[in-house]
C-alpha cells in the first residue's frame, strides 16, 4: 500500500507515492536522492540523520512522511546558495571540523539552527546545542571552533 504525500524540501514542493511506514530518512535518501542525510542507528540515538524542520533540528529516522506535510524541510543539500557554500560549510572545511564527514551534514544543520536563533553563542551554548549529535573522529573541538568562526564572520 502506498500513500500520496506532499513534502516541501529545500524550498521545492514534491509529490510522492510512498509506503506510509517508510521513514523521512529513507524517503530523502532513496526517493529524492538526497544522500547527504546519513544514518547511524535508525533509532534516534546518534542524530546523524538530522535535518531541519521549520528551521529546528529534527531526526529524520524517527519521522513518517505524513507527519511533515505542510512543514519546511531543509537538508544539507539545501544549505548552499547555488554553488556558494553556507558560511558554516566554509569554516568546517577550513578548520578540519569534518574528518570522516559522516556526522558533518547533521552537525552543520544543527549549528545553523543555533546560529539562526543565537548569532553569537557562547562555547557552552554550542556544546549544549550539539550535544545530541555524536561524532567519533574530531573530539568536537574543531567543530566548536568552526561554529565560533562562522559566528564571528557574521559580524
Amino acid at each position, binding site marked *: 500500500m502506498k500513500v500520496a504525500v506532499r513534502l516541501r524540501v529545500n524550498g521545492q514542493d514534491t509529490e510522492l507515492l510512498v509506503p506510509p511506514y517508510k521513514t523521512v530518512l529513507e524517503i530523502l535518501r532513496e526517493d529524492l536522492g538526497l544522500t547527504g542525510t546519513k544514518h*547511524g542507528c535508525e*533509532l534516534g540515538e546518534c542524530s*546523524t540523520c538530522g535535518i531541519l524542520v521549520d528551521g529546528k533540528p529534527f531526526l529524520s529516522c524517527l519521522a513518517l512522511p505524513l507527519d511533515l506535510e505542510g512543514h519546511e524541510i531543509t537538508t544539507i543539500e539545501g544549505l548552499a546558495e547555488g554553488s556558494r557554500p553556507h558560511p558554516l560549510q566554509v569554516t568546517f572545511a577550513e578548520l578540519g571540523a569534518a*574528518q570522516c*564527514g559522516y556526522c558533518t551534514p547533521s552537525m552543520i544543520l544543527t549549528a545553523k539552527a543555533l546560529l539562526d536563533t543565537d548569532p553569537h553563542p557562547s562555547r557552552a551554548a554550542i556544546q549544549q546545542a550539539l550535544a545530541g549529535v555524536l561524532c*567519533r573522529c574530531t573530539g568536537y573541538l574543531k567543530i566548536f571552533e568552526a561554529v565560533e568562526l562562522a559566528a564571528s564572520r557574521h559580524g
Partner: protein
Amino acid sequence: MAKTQADELAVVGKSLPKPDAMGKVSGQARFADDLMLPRMLFARILRSPLPHARIRQVDASRARAMPGVQAVLTGEDLPIKYGILPVSQDEEALCSEKVRYVGDPVAAVAATDEWIADAALEAIDVSFEALPSVMSIDEALAQPGEPIHPRGNVHKAVALEFGDTEEGLRSADHTREDVVFFEGNTHLPMEQHAAVAQYGQDGKLTVWSSTQTPHYVHRALGKVLELPMSRIRVIATPNGGGFGGKSDIFAHEIVAAKLAMVTGRPVKITLTREEVFYAHRGRHPVLMKVRTGFRRDGRITAMQFQSFLDGGGYGSYGVASTYYTGALQTATYAIPRYRFEGVRLFTNKPPCGPKRGHGTPQPRFALEVHLDKVADELGLDPVAIRRRNLVQPNSQTVNWLRITSCGLEACMDRVVADSRFLERRTAMPSGRGLGFAVSSYLSGAGTAIYWNDMPHSEVQVKVDRGGGVSVLCGAIDIGQGSDHILAAIVAEVLGVSLQDIQLTTADTDLTPIDLGSYSSRVTFMVGNAAIAAAQRVRQRLAEAAARMLHCESDELSFRGGQVGRRDHPGEAISFAQTVQAAEAGEGLISASGSYTPPKLAGPYKGSGVGPSPAYSFSAAVVEVECDPRTGEVRVPEVWIAHDIGRAINPVLVEGQVEGSVYMALGEALMEEQTFRIGVHKFPSMLEYKSPTTLEMPVVHTSLVESLDPEGPFGAKEAGQGPLLPVIPAIANAVYNALGVRIDEIPITPEKVLRALAQPSRRVGPKGVPRFAFPSPIQAARPPEWEGK
C-alpha cells in the same frame, strides 16, 4: 627532504582545507550506502542467536518461495575459509558446521527491497545443537566442553626473552608486580559498514566497500569466490569512520559479491547498528601482569610482562594483537632485559582485532600506572622516574626496535611545564587530581601482512598539458586526511596549488597499491612514495624548462604554478608551458614512486611485530575532578604533546590528536563491549556510552617536530599514538585525586565507589590464571645492550 626549512615550503606545513573537505561539508561525498545502481537488490544476513552451537540443518525453502526474494545463500555456497592473516584462515562467510558467537553469519538473502529481505530471514529455518559456551579467559583455559576450534581454545601463546630477566630482577634494589585488566571496547564508527557488488556478463566483479583495506578484501574475494584477482575490482568508498573497525575482511563483503554473481544484479548490503556491534574486531579485553626491577635511583634493571587476551570466536588479527601487547614497552623506556609472554584465547564472543593503538593501549595502561606506583615507593615523582629511563634518539631497543627521531623528552617537558604538573600535583584541592603518562607508536608496520619484498605503497603522477596533475594511489581516506597527504606532497614538489591536483584513490583497477589505512602507515609510506613519483616528474619537467630558460635543471625552482630560475626571479615559465614543452619532447609525462620500508625485524621468531621505520612519541597530563559521593570522574582539562616529526597539515594533526584524546576518554571512563551469555549488553548507541560534546574537556595540544630523517618532509604518524598516554594519565589522576587505584579500565563510578569503601583502596584483578607458557625464545640482544 626531511630537513627542508619550513619557510621554503608552500603547501607542506600549512593548515589548509583538505581536498575532500568541501565534498564532506556539502553532503556530496559518496559513502558506500549512498550508491544506487539500476536493478539493485538489497541483502540481509541471518546471524546466529547462540554463542556456540552446531548447525544441524538450514532449510531455506520457505524463504526462496517468497515473492521478491531473488537468492538465498547458506554455508555450502561459500565453503572456502579466509581470514586477514595468512596464519588465521579460520572464518567462513556463512557458517557451515558451527557458529562461534552470537552474530556469526549463517545465511543471506537478496531481495527487491530490505523489508522483503528481512521477512525472508525469518522464513529460514535453522536447527542448532547448542554447545557449552566459553565466556571468559578463565573458562577458555579450563576448557570444559568442546573447544571452539579443533586445536583447542588457546589460539596463540608466545614467549620471548631478551637477556636474563631473572638475574636482572635479582640484582634490583626494588621490585614490584602489578596485575591490571583492560576491558574490551569497540570502534563505533558513525557509518555502519556497507558494500555494493556488481557482476557483469563480461565475468568481472566490482565491489564497493567501506573498507580500510581494499587490497586485502581484493585478495580474500579472489580466494573465496575462486576468481582470478584480475577479474575483481575493489573500490574503497570514503569510510565514515574506521578506527580499525573496517580493516578486516567481513562476511557481508563476500556475501554481497556472491549474491551479485548468483543473481546477475547489483546487490547492496548495509549492516544495522546492532550488527556493527557484533561485527566488532575491536579492542581485546586483556589481563596483564607486569613485574619490574629498579635501582634505587629509579633505573629499570629488568621487566617481565604477561598478557592474556580474550580473543573472541576467530583469529582475525589476533596473532599480531598478541605480539603488540608486548612489543612497544621498550620504545619509551630503555629496558636492558625484557621478557614477554602472551596468550590469546578463543571465547564465544565477537572476534577482537585492531582498534586505534592495536594491542598497545592495554599494556601502556599497565606500564604507566605501574611506573607511578613504583615512583611513589622510591620517593620519586612521576616525571623523574620516566626521565631516568627515557629511550634515546638513534638507539636500538633490547627487542631490536630501531629508534631514529625521538621527541619524547620534548613532549614531556612541554606538558609538564604547561600544566605546571610538578607544582600543582601535590597541592590539588579535594577531589581533584593530575596524572601523567607517556607513550610511543609505530609510523606504519615495517612488515606487510603477507611477507614479501614488494613495496608497501605506490603512487603514480601524471601531468596534463593544461597544467593539471593526476595522482593515483591505493590509499583510502578514512577521515584521517590521507587524501590531503597525497595532494599536499605532490603539490609541494611540483610547485602547484592543491586545486591543480586530481586524486584517484583506492581502486584496485586504476590505482597502484597501498596496503591500507592501518598501523598508522599512510602518511609515512604513501608520503614517501608520492615524493618519489613527483620528483621523477619534476626532473623531466625541469629538463624541458632548462632548455627553454637556458640554464641547468638544478637551478630551477617550482613554485606558485611557475618554473623559474632560482637566481633570476624574473625568468620563469608557467607550469603548463613546462608540461607542454616536455610533452612535445618526449610524449606523456608521468612517473611512479614506491616505498618499501627498510628491513628492520630482529633476528628472532616473532620479530615482525613492532618494527617501524619511525616511532611517534606522546606525553599527556590529565586533570580530573572526582565526586566521592557518586564516584563520577570528570575531565576538565588535558595537556598533550605529540612528536609528529613534521606536521604536513597542522590543523589535521591537531584533529587527530584531539580525536585521540576524545577516544581515550571514552575508553578510560565509560566504553565497554561486554556480553551476557554471548549477547551484547549495550548494542546500541544509547546504551553504549560514548562522550558527547558535554564531556569533552579543554585540550591543550602541542606539536613537537623532530624531523624524522626518513619521514616524508620529516613527518611521522598522528592517528593512533596520542590516544595511548591519556588512558593511564586518567587512572593516575584519579589516584592523585582520591587515593584510590582503579586497576581496571573503564574507570566507572561504581568501581570508584567500591575502591573508596575498601581498605585496600583498590579495584582490580587479584592475579592471573595459571598457564604454562612455552619456554621463551632466548633472543640475542643488540650489541649496545650486551653485558648490561
